[in-house]
Every structure is written in C-alpha cells, then in structure tokens.
C-alpha cells in the first residue's frame, strides 16, 4: 500500500476516483478533495458521473451541466451523462456530427446501443480519461487534478470493471483501444487512486472492506485513502460516564435530558469506535476521519473545514 500523497503535489496521482456506498457523503468528500487542492493553486476538474448535482446550490449558481464551468479560482466542474459522452466521443471518432446523428440518434439504433453492455459507462470513463490527457495552450496538462465523483458501490464497481471486461473479451475496435488506455491509467498508482468513503456503521464498513478487497485483488486497482465520515467523539472519560449514568437516575427535567443526551452521544461514539477499529485493522494509516458537522445543510464553509482535515497527520 502506498502512503498518502505528500503536501507539495509533486508525484501525486492526477486522477482520483471517489466511490462508496450510497448516502455516505461521497460527493462531499469529492468536493472537499477538490477544495483542498484548488485552494493550494492546483487546477482541479471535478467530474460528476451519474450523481445528483449539489454543486450548483453550494456555490450559489445554477446546476452544473454537461459544459465545464468554473466554480471558484482553480476549481471547475462538469456533469457527465452517458448520452452526452456518447455523442461527444462518437462525433470525435466519426468526424461527422451528421453521421453520428443519422446512426446513433436513430430511435431504433439507440435502443440497440442501450443493450451493448458497458458502452455508455466506457464512454463516460473515456471522457474523464480524455481530460486527464488534455493539454492546455502552453503545452502543459490543462488540469493538475481530475476528481471523479463516481456512482455508488454497485454501479461504481461496474464502471471500473468495464475496461477490464472489454479488454479481455474483445480484440479490435475503438472500444478496445479506449478500454486499454483507460486501464493503463486506472492501474497505474502513480497516475490514479481509488478513494473510498464510508460511515462508521456496520453495513457501510463491511461493504467498504469488501469493496477494497475486490478493487485491489480482483481488479488490481490502486487503492487510495479511506474517508470515514460523520464521526461523533465521546466527551466522557470512564469515571465521568459512571457519574453521568448514576446522576441520570436521580435527575429530572432539563438535567435529565442533558445527561441522557450525553449518554446517547457516548453510546453512539462507542458503537462507531468499534467500526473504526475494524477499519483501522484493514486500512491502517490510509484511514482519514471526518467529524460529523453540527449542521444539517452543508455549506461551502463546512466543506472547507473538512478539506482542512485532509492533510492533518492521523491522530494515534
């Protein structure tokens, strides 16, 4: 396993793919990673694949669509849809929008295309790949960092499997060429990392451990960091907990309520701690902890608080 990227940005992979079970805060972590890098002057492109857009709202603008938009200095974003990726790629290969339309947008053909397993996903990944290679006018890479906010576990694995399946099943054609290029990027730990996001709860944790094993052992992809979200810290030492339990028995009214809340929090923190231990055993210092923020609707400032934590050394 490789260590976390260093602070300078030199030698860090330029392609990060963020995935995890649905509802664990994957998009928030993807954005925190993007903010962390862009605030240090790296030109970041955040790509949303098959995910619902919240960026527009956070940045106080309209939804991020299929055109790249600059959200903040050094931070741009785009949503990728299969249909649009297919059109872009198809037109590029065929060198004719007219031919593309005649063939691909024909109702009958497009129905058929939906059945070709993996074609839309390959093209979406292909678009991300294209941006990783893309050069600016000065001949340097246009983007210092591409962050892909990938679909949740099931679909995310499916997405990552596509190039592997295609290269093993096919021999010729553009799909194979694209898949080979993709795989060269995805499997190279100097260029790419798969970052996982999870919650300190039983199901997400066991799923994450399973996912990591599939990624590294079966798909041979480079695993990056594991972000565990919404951590609650207990603020009670053991003697304090004993005192709170005993005080709660006699307390009434607001005092009882406050003591009950403290025990609730402690119990939750303890349950979470068991899951963290499980994650630590498996992932060691690849683990990154994000606290639960005392807010319901995340603002950009909240995301930045998380971004600040990315580089902090792990607490023992």
């Amino acid at each position, binding site marked *: 396993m490789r260590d976390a990227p260093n602070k300078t940005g030199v030698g860090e992979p330029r392609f990060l793919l963020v995935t995890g079970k649905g*509802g664990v805060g994957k998009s928030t972590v993807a954005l925190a990673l993007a903010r962390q890098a862009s605030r240090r002057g790296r030109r970041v492109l955040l790509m949303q694949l098959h995910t619902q857009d919240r960026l527009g709202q956070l940045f106080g603008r309209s939804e991020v669509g299929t055109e790249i938009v600059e959200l903040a200095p050094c931070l741009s974003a785009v949503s990728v849809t299969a249909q649009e990726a297919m059109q872009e790629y198809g037109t590029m290969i065929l060198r004719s929008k007219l031919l593309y339309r005649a063939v691909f947008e024909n109702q009958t053909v497009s129905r058929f295309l939906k059945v070709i397993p993996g074609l839309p996903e390959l093209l979406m990944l292909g678009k991300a790949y294209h941006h990783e290679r893309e050069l600016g006018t000065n001949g340097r890479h246009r983007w210092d960092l591409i962050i892909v906010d990938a679909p949740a576990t099931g679909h995310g694995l499916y997405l990552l499997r596509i190039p592997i399946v295609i290269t093993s099943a096919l021999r010729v054609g553009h799909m194979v060429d694209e898949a080979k290029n993709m795989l060269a990027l995805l499997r190279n730990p100097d260029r790419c990392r798969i970052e996982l996001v999870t919650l300190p709860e039983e199901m997400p944790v066991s799923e994450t451990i399973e996912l990591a094993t599939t990624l590294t052992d079966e798909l041979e992809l480079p695993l990056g960091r594991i972000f565990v979200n919404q951590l609650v810290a207990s603020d009670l030492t053991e003697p304090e907990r004993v005192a709170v339990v005993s*005080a709660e028995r006699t307390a009434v009214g607001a005092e009882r309520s406050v003591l009950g809340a403290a025990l609730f929090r402690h119990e939750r923190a303890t349950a979470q701690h068991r899951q963290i231990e499980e994650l630590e055993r498996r992932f060691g210092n690849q683990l990154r902890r994000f606290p639960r923020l005392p807010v319901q609707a995340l603002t950009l400032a909240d995301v930045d608080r998380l971004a600040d934590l990315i580089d902090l050394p792990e607490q023992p």
Partner: protein
Amino acid sequence: MQTLEQLVGSARILVCVGRGGVGKTTMSALLARQAAASGRRALVLTIDPARRLADALGIAALTDEPVRLADPTLSGEMWAAMLKTDEPFAAILRRRMPDPAERASLEANRFYRFFATSLAGAHELAAAERLHDLATCGRYDLVVLDTPPALHASDFLDAPKRFHDALDSAAFHWLTGGKSGGRRGIRIGVGLGLVQKTLSRFTGAEFLSELTEFLSQMSALMEGFKTRAAETTALIRSEEAHFVLITAPASDAPQSVSESAEAMQSRGCRVSALIVNRMMPPVALPADTRALTALLQEAGLSNKAAGALSERLRDSAAEASRFAESDEAMLRQLEQRWASTLAVEAVRAFPQEVSSLAALDAIRAALFPERAR
C-alpha cells in the same frame, strides 16, 4: 387515506423505497413483524440485511427461499427471504431455461457472465419477479419488499419494461436479419450496412455479430417474459400494493421525497406512507449548570470535575438540541406537504444500529402503540 397500521393490516404488498442509509431494511423487517404480530402471514423480502439485524431476527442463514422465524409471541407468521444480488440474472435464467445442459451452453458464452451480472436493471428485475412469485403463491398475506438501493426509486418500476424493451428490441431483430423489424414497420432512415459498419468501428465487427447473436438467443428465451412483466407491473399497480417512502430528515429530504413520490405516482403506483426515520431525540436545556453540577457531585465527582463536566455536557446538549430542532423542522415541512395524502410517521434515532429484536420492538411499540403490546 389509511394509517400505517391499517396498511400493515390490509395491504398485500408493501414496497419500501428510499436511499441507502435511511434504515430501509430495518423498517421493512419491522412492518412485516407488525403484520405478523397482528395475526397475518407476513414475509419480508430483503437484500443483504445487516449482519446483526439478521442475527437478531434469527436469520443468519437466510437464503433465497423464505424461512419462518420461530417466535411464539407473534399470533401470525413471520417469514423472511433474502434476494441474492450477486447473480440476479442466473435466477431469471433458471426459471426460463429449466434444462441444465441448455443453460450450461448459454452460460459458456463469453458474453454471458458479463451480461448476466451487469445488464442494467437486472437486479431490479429479479426483485420484481421474485415479488410477483411470492405475492401470488398464496402462502403469505403480506409481502414487504426492501428494494435494492438505486439512485432513482423508479429504476425498480421501470426495470421490467426496460429489460423487456432491450431484449425484445426490434433493433436487433433487424440487425440480425430477423423479420420482426419489418413487421413492426421500422423506418430506420439509413441503410443496415451503414449502421453495422459505423457501429463496428466502435466495437469491432466480431463483437457486434457475436453480441447480436447472443442477444437474439436471449430474446428467444425471453418469449414468456412479456406476459410476466405485464403481470408484475399490474400487481405493483394494483390496489393491494402500496409504496412506503422512507427518508432521513436530511436537508434534501423534501426534494427527494417529492421526486420519489411523483416518479411512482406517475407510473400508476399508490404511494401511501412516509416514514421519517433517524430523528434525533429532542433535548431540553437547563437555564444554568448549577443543578447539573450538584447532581454530578452527588454521583461522586469532585467539585471542580463536576463543574467542568457540566459545562461540557451543556455545550454538547446544545449541539444535540440543534440537530433535534432541525430534524423537527424538517419533519414539519414534510408533514405540511404530505400529511393530507400520506400516512406520515416519525421514528427517532437510536445511538446504535438496530441489532436486536428488543430494539426493533421498541421502535414498533412507538409506531404502533396499541397493537405492539
């Protein structure tokens, strides 16, 4: 409009939908258990239940086939089955192709494995088919379905049709030289040769011809599928089937609930209940910490330690209270929008995941105060 209790007492199918992490599996188990407690024969059809919940229900070795949970406290019957999600397609195939030799030949096709595990909608389709079988077999009064996690709840509803469209697509009949394309009067507007040539630039000619062959084989196999898909759709749309939306009180709950409800209603389904789960319990805050400090001192802490701790506890309670208030505000917003058309119920959060029958029954008692006892 029916209450959740009435629904559990009379519906034949309850479909629980919601995003990952909202407690869908727990709620599905709970609704089935409540039906069983009220004397019905209830089955919960779930997907990979959390290990500890499974243990709690005594369903550690849960399989595709329903297992009855031994529980003398229930006047009815509670059954549970798990949808195998790793090979949804294999289950569909077994049904359509009973001859193992024939099946083996198809499974040997190099496209099969990829296709079988990855065709969009296969999971949802398998769930829908299984639901149909179990709900119509006559052994259960109620089947509660814990739907597979999907980005859009409607994936589940559209799967049979989409799957059918894909496999029965006139396009590949036409591409493979079948007659049905002509029968359906497809006017493709460009020549077959051009289409094949263009597509094979992407896929390679070999892939395209093998894939079309494979798909037409599948298509022949799926002849009976149309009827089944229609029956499943009709069942899900019938008056005996109700959708239960489950959400957490997150900031995007109003939007996601509206989207789900509209998606399902527009597909002719009955959305009947909304459960707002994981509500942080309210916390009352004392005006000052004197009484708290005194209590902690009585409990054995030193003067100084009790004072410091009570300050910390008050701050942390204030934070908990903000969470609770914001959850409460979210619930009110959801009630305002939905309480006139749906049975809206709130379920409080628990410090730990629900992992015992006692915990499950505690929620059940809160949701169904009369009958749970």
